[in-house]
């Protein structure tokens, strides 16, 4: 039975990947891609990796779908030519083929090599879990044992938002923003906004003892913001570039500050005192959740028409 389930899931996954790549209509591709994210989160659950499944459900089914649909609206508004089939003489076809084969070969090599780590990392983690301040091993790795990586990942996200800001200023064909004055939608917002917000905070809180954490919570929070925006409610906060940028670096700033305090006592960067590690990790995660949510929302917001967006006031 188990093999049958897995086999079916793999077949659906491969079929959807093929469909989303080779479908002629862009809209259909986007639909298949969103579905691919959904099936992928099922597959992660089958593989007993609920943390990744949560992230995939929040990012793949939620925010990526919205961003892709939004991009589609931009493509239609600027009346781009429909996608053409790749020609054999085009160098980019051979480039794609070459890099694709390279990745497959590298993956095959990685799979064929037997796993024999020099240090048994899983044992190391479970040995030191008590000192990390949290009881969920993945959160312990992300925010304590390897917090440098997480810090840099968040910096990359901030960079992505900055790139989006730069691109927006060069966009000549902004899409007119069609708000939806719909009673049903307003009722929907009243019902769902608090619930999405609550689930986001729950994921953040759950992160220290079970699957969850800042990235998942941030993605869910971003969806709550997007819902708020799609209904047509605008906040002053999102209109001002100043506040926008401050929101981006808020989490990173908290992370760096908390990490820098031990430097005063002559300890290395990002070592938390054992007694307060749990509280500090929660503080960092709260900052990261707000910032990640804000950054993902900004990616959506920045693609909107420039006229609804005021530059910062210059008297």
């Amino acid at each position, binding site marked *: 039975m188990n093999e049958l389930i897995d086999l079916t899931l793999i077949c659906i996954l491969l079929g959807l990947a093929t469909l989303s790549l080779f479908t002629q209509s862009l*809209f259909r591709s986007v639909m*298949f891609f969103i*579905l691919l994210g959904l099936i992928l989160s099922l597959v992660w*659950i*089958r593989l007993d990796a609920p943390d990744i499944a949560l992230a995939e459900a*929040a990012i793949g089914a939620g925010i990526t779908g919205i961003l892709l649909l939004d991009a589609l609206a931009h493509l239609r508004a600027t009346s781009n030519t429909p996608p053409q089939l790749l020609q054999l003489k085009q160098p980019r076809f051979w480039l794609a083929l070459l890099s694709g084969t390279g990745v497959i070969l590298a993956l095959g090599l990685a799979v064929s090599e037997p796993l024999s780590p020099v240090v048994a990392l899983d044992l190391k983690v479970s040995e030191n879990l008590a000192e990390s301040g949290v009881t969920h091993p993945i959160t312990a790795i992300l925010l304590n044992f390897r917090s440098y990586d997480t810090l840099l990942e968040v910096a990359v996200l901030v960079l992505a938002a900055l790139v989006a800001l730069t691109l927006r200023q060069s966009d000549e064909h902004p899409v007119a923003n*069609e708000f939806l004055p719909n009673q049903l939608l307003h009722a929907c917002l009243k019902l769902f906004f608090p619930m999405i917000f609550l689930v986001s905070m729950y994921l953040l809180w759950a992160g220290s003892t079970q699957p969850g954490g800042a990235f998942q919570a941030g993605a869910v929070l971003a969806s709550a913001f997007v*819902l708020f925006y799609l209904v047509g409610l605008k906040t002053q906060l999102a209109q001002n570039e100043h506040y926008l940028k401050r929101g981006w670096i808020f989490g990173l700033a908290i992370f760096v500050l908390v990490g820098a305090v031990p430097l005063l006592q002559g300890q290395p960067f990002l070592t938390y005192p054992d007694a307060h590690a749990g509280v500090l990790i929660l503080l960092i995660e709260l900052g990261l959740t707000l910032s990640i949510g804000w950054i993902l929302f900004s990616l959506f917001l920045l693609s909107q028409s420039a006229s609804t967006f005021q530059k910062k006031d210059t008297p």
Partner: protein
Amino acid sequence: MNSLYSITLVILLLSLLMGVFRIWRGPRMADRIMAAQLTGSTGVAVLLIFAELQNQPAARDTALVLALLAMLVAIAFVGRVWGFTREKKDS
């Protein structure tokens, strides 16, 4: 009890496949979005079954997130894409 889950799972996977077929066939964009919503709901149900079958409580959290966020795609579609191409087939 386990066989009940298995039978439900088979039905749900069939429903998933039918959703995929309906997205492929269309013919209108709204049909495809409706089919995507169907697969979203089916995905939630499959996750709940997996939570029981594999004794994986976090699958319920994933189902919760999926259930809340799946409808956003429909709203984004109506707000962004629908207005530009109303009454037209997407081809």
